Structure formats: C-alpha cells, structure tokens
C-alpha cells in the first residue's frame, strides 16, 4: 500500500501539480472579483468550474497512483467505462446491437485491463484490434438485424478502440521494464498525463488570450492557430523541464512531449468531428450534467498508445 510515497521524485511531481492547482484557484478567485461585464463573468465561472473539476480529478488520480499498479488500473478501468458509456449513448445503436454492447462493456473491456494486470503484453496488444474486431461483426450478424450493418459494426469497434484500447495504454506504461527505471513507472504515467492535460489547458488559455485565426472552424470553433502554437510550445517546454522525473535526456523529453502535444491536439479534433457528425446537440443535455468525460480524455486517447510504443521501442531493450 501507498508505495508511491517512497519515491521522492514522484512526490516532487505531485507537489508541482498541487502548487499549480493552488495558484490557478487563487487566480480564478481574483479574476472573479475583478470581472465587470456579463460575458467575462460567464467565461470566468466556466474557468472556475474547470478548476474545481481539476482538483477532484487530481486528488483521485494522485491517490490511485500512490496505491500502485492495481489502483491505476482500477482508476483507468472506471474512466474507460464512463467514457464508453458516454460514447454509446451518443452513437445511435439498434436493438440488434444489445448483446454485442453487453459483451463489449462487461467482458472485452475488463479483460483488456486484466491483461495489463497479469502483464500479458502479447494478448493485450491484439485483444481489441484483432479478437474484438472479429467478434463484434460476428455477434451483430448473429442478431439477425442487417440494417446499417457496416455502420453499426464500425461505430462499436471505433468506440471500444478509443475508450478501452487506446486509453488502456496509459496505465500499460506501468508494464514497461526500462533499465535503471524499475519501480518508478508511476512517474512515467504521471508525466504523460501532465504534459497531455497541460497541453489542453494551455491551448485553451492561449486561445482565449490571443486566439484569432481558426484552424478548422467547421469542426471546432474554439481551436485557433495562436492557441495551438502557444499551447504546444509551452506544454513542450514544461515537458522538457520535467526530464529529471523520466528516463529521458532533456532532448528526448522535448521530442516526446512535443509528440504528446501534437497527438493530443489530433485526438481533440477527431472527437469534435465525431460529435459534429452525430449531432451532439440532441444529447448535449446528458453530457453537460456529467462534465463530459470524453471531452477530458480525447487527447489522452490519441497520445497514450503512441507514447507507449515510442517508449517501448526506444527505451525497453
């Protein structure tokens, strides 16, 4: 229990996150009392709500990391569950998909995390892209309902790839056996999450401050070139500055955090496109009340698997 406490560098990372949260809470409070107009007040209320959500998430995440590998697996398993519940709510499924969905939620997804737990890398890597890929269309076909067959199979496969397979690569970092870094994998996971989420936050902040030119306004009206460049550069700088907590040199850390930032951006963009496609406005009510788990983790879903494989390829002999 609480093996994380024995790692001073991990504690430093946590301390940094805590410091950042305290500062942002203070800034949020100052901004609130300084805001004059109705519009700015709405923006700042939104900002403060985000900061409150961050506190909760960080405390939960921090606790799960301290508990060790099982804690992280359970935590990410729950996030996968919530994200997939959200995704399947939004995607129109048919009565014939019911059993397939049931197996996806209660067998395939838990199995994916269980495989990390027992450190079976081979099966972990092919479970969803190969086995589930064969299982899902077969199971839908067995239901006898062939209307929109290809669409339904594709939507379910995509959902489980994003919410279970991609995301599970974040806690799978704890599997990696990096020479000279044994027992410190929790830092690597925290590093990924910090750089990825800070890139989101900083893109939002830079976009709000100096954002002018839209990148893909049809898909996501809030993404601007200024926000993108500013966010990616500052988050990369931050990631580089955290090299001491990782097995990387400063240059490697810079390259890896740059990759995380770019992929995070791609994830956000793709998820926005999906939401436009399925017309989120109808089900927006459901999501808003729940804070939108998918919105928070879309960047991580794209960054985690690539980061995992880069580290595995270059740092694990």
């Amino acid at each position, binding site marked *: 229990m609480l093996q994380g406490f024995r790692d001073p560098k991990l504690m430093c990372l946590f301390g940094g996150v805590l410091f950042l949260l305290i500062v942002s809470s203070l800034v949020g409070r100052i901004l609130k009392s300084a805001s004059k107009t109705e519009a700015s007040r709405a923006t700042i209320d939104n900002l403060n709500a985000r900061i409150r959500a961050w506190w909760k998430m960080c405390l939960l995440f921090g606790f799960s990391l301290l508990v060790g590998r099982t804690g992280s697996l359970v935590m990410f398993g729950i996030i996968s*569950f*919530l994200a*997939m*519940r*959200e995704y*399947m*709510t939004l995607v*129109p*499924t048919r*009565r014939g998909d*019911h*059993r397939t*969905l*049931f197996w996806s*939620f209660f067998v395939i997804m838990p199995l994916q995390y269980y495989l990390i737990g027992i450190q079976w890398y081979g099966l972990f890597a092919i479970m969803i892209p190969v086995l589930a890929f064969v299982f899902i269309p077969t199971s839908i076909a067995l239901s006898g309902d062939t209307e929109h067959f290809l669409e339904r199979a594709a939507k379910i496969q995509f959902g489980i790839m994003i919410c279970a397979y991609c995301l599970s690569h974040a806690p799978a970092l704890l599997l990696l056996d990096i020479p000279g870094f044994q027992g410190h994998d929790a830092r690597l996971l925290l590093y990924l999450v910090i750089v990825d989420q800070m890139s989101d936050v900083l893109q939002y902040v830079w976009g709000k401050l100096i954002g002018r030119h839209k990148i893909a306004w049809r898909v996501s009206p809030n993404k601007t070139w200024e926000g993108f460049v500013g966010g990616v550069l500052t988050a990369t700088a931050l990631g580089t500055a955290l090299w001491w907590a990782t097995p990387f040199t400063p240059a490697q850390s810079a390259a890896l955090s740059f990759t995380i930032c770019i992929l995070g951006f791609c994830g956000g963009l793709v998820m926005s496109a999906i939401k436009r496609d399925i017309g989120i406005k*109808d*089900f927006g*009510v*459901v*999501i808003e*009340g*729940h804070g939108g788990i998918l919105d928070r983790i879309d960047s991580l879903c794209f960054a985690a698997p690539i980061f995992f494989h880069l580290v595995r390829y270059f740092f694990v002999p």
Partner: protein
Amino acid sequence: MSDGIHPIASLLAAVARGITGVQVQWAGCQPDVKQRIYFANHTSHLDFVVLWSALPSEIRALTRPVAAKDYWEETPLRRYLTEKVFKAVLVERGATAKTKNHEEGHFVGRHLIEDLAVALGKKNSLILFPEGTRGDGKQLGEFRAGLYHLALRRPDVELVPAYLENLNRILPKGEFLMVPMLSLLTFGKPLQVEPHEEKEVFLGRAREAVSSLRRIGPA
C-alpha cells in the same frame, strides 16, 4: 407494510444508478414527503427502480410501485422482488375487461381502486405506469383509466408526471442483460382532476403532461 428499505432494494437502486448514470431534473416540483402518485412512461423494467432511486431516501421508504399481478407473480424470483424487496402493490391488468357484464366490471374496477387507495394509506406514495405495459420508447401508449379513478378516490394525493429517457436502450423489453448508457429523468408539475372533468379529457391531459417532459427529440 413495515417501514425501512430492504437492503436488496438499495443495492438494486445503486446498480441501476451506476449503469444508467441517471440525471434527475425536478422541473415542475420539488422532492417532498407529501403523498403523491408518480406516473411515468414505461419502456423498461428499470423504469421503476430508476425513478425510485432518484427520490431522497426518506421519500423512498414511503414509496411503493404498482405492478401487474399476472407478470410479477409468475416466478418465485419475481414474487420475491415485488413482495419482499419493493413491497409492490399488485394489480390485475384489464380485470374489468375480463368480467361478464357491466355491473361486474364496475364492481371489480372499484375493488382495484380501493386496493390502491388502501395501499396509499395515510403517508405512502405510489409509482404507477398508466400505459399498463412497456412500450418501444418511440411513442407513448394510451393511458388506462385507473389513474383517473384513483385520482377521484383520493383527491388529497398529488399527481406528479415524470418522463424517463433512454432506459429502453439499457434494458429493452424481452432482454435481461443491461448495457450501460446515460439516461434522463424529469419530474413535471403536479396536476389534478378538474371538477366534472371527463375521464378521456383528463387521461389525455395526463398523457400530454408526461410526453411534454421529453428532453430529447425522437431518434
């Protein structure tokens, strides 16, 4: 009826909330221990459990479901759930239609309403699905007359409409495995039978009150 909530009932309510992540909105009234009849659309076995779990625990302890006798007495498990766990009031569906003549039908109908009035007693509330059966979630069925007669018999009890969304995708009719999805529950403004109001007029109004609470357009 003994007070207190059966532990299995609490467990089932917690599971239902975890699977459905139900987001509750009290749009037309606030939660209250006063005697009420909650009436809602019916598409899934989860309807009752989710609606019940959305009530604060002190109200929950006083609120009983109304369930169809023919269905819920069929197997020992169903009997256990209705009798012991949820303390349901069992009614015979279409009892009046099965009788030989008008008088007998009238008698049976009155008997049924009397049962429900007794179940309400001095402090209990009821959860009722006036469609009488589970629909496909696309369209609201016609309401049965029981709600009207019960409302006349107990004018002191508030009639609260409610709408449950997306539950038919989580546990559809004829299925026993649940799929996790988000759902919505909206409580509307209480309504009453107006003086001299015709049965059909009131039932139409009650049905409209339920369907107007729908937050997501038809898929």
